[in-house]
């Protein structure tokens, strides 16, 4: 087990290091999310109460679109020089390779989110730090769901010419249950309303979603990678 996580960590560290050097996906995802937040701020009145009601949804829409730029690179960054073949032929178990890729996606997505949230707070006049623990839980669980499903579909579409188009088409519908939970919890956290009772169901949905899709992806990735 220690070996498994050590190999996963080596893959994740390599992906983060590579992305940090080129900043290809980070720069595009970050600028995209800031531009979309800016454009929406012109469309809606930042001071209006109604804006605060759909703030969580708006934020997650931006994260989803910007996030697809990050997860799309997860396996496609292995295409130059046929590095994916070398990784598959190596002693790294496919599940460890997948977990490393998902973890690298998670870190990169969190960077985008942590940059976007303060910008969102300024553009929409929202005090976003009033329930930091709940916001962190919603961000963490949903970002992990995006990373896991995104990495699996990135592996599945890596050899397709239209992968940039295919990946969002596969990813977004699969993420709907997690997104519903994320939007509800984030909206409540941003509005500084208590999260209790029926709202806790969404937390359970997010946890269950992460567990189910992480297990499913780890089981399927061997089949997806070896053709």
């Amino acid at each position, binding site marked *: 087990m220690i*070996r498994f996580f*050590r*190999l996963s960590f*080596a893959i994740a560290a*390599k992906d983060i*290091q*590579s992305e940090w*050097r*080129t900043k290809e996906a980070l720069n595009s995802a970050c600028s995209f999310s800031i531009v979309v937040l800016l454009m929406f701020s012109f469309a809606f009145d930042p001071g209006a109460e109604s804006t605060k009601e759909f703030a969580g949804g708006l934020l997650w829409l931006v994260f989803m679109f910007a996030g697809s730029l990050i997860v799309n690179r997860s396996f496609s960054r292995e295409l*130059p*020089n*046929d*590095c994916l*073949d*070398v*990784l*598959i*032929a*190596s*002693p*790294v178990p496919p599940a460890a390779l997948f977990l490393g890729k998902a973890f690298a996606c998670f870190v990169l997505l969190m960077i985008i989110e942590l940059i976007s949230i303060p910008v969102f707070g300024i553009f929409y006049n929202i005090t976003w730090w009033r329930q930091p623990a709940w916001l962190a839980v919603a961000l963490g669980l949903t970002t992990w769901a995006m990373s896991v499903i995104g990495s699996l579909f990135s592996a599945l579409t890596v050899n397709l010419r239209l992968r940039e188009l295919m990946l969002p088409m596969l990813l977004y519908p699969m993420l709907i249950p997690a997104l519903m939970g994320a939007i509800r919890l984030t909206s409540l956290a941003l509005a500084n309303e208590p999260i209790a009772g029926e709202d806790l169901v969404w937390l359970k949905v997010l946890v269950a979603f992460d567990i189910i899709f992480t297990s499913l992806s780890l089981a399927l990735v061997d089949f997806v990678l*070896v*053709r």
Partner: protein
Amino acid sequence: MAAVSVENVWKYFGDYPALRDVNFTIDAGTCLALLGRNGAGKTTLLRILAGLSGTSKGAVKLPDRRRTAYLGHNIGIYDELSALENLKLFGRLYEVPNVKQAAAKWLERVNLAHVADSPAREFSRGMRQRLALGRVFIHEPEMLLLDEPFTSLDDQAIALLQGLMREARMRGATIILSTHQLREALELATNVVLLRRGQIAYCGPRTKAMADDPAALYRDHGGEP
């Protein structure tokens, strides 16, 4: 005991059988030349042996992945990472003890120690090929799977690869190489598998007659070099 066994392997791409009932075993320490014209199934078989592709029918048995190395048509190194970082990464993946020292040693071996910290994307083609050789040999593999290893290598890299293969053979490594360069392959090989349209046309020891007249292999067993 057989180091590699290929048992009744079939591989279909759609309806097309790229490999048809391929059977052979080789012992540890063997250098097998996998020959055949374009489309004969050499790369398909090597990809199956490397674990990159599954079989449609049949099975292959190989040593532990930690002791094997694969060099495909491309170099398999990361352009954004430095030469040292590339070798350290693959050292870690193959669980090489003392990975820093091993990476530094192999950079010396492939004459890239002076550019250890430069990103691989800044390297010339020859330097990248030598870095790929460092990547392949860093864990001192017992089994080498080499797909057209001499193709597009410069003279320096060919000499380096031949030297490394000889060293690997001396320490008892098993080598399977597919190539169109008959003379080089038959000089190194102890055994030959000739594939023709996905089937084995010849499987056996390399004879002196083959080394003296490589084209005779194709004349006697079919196919074109």
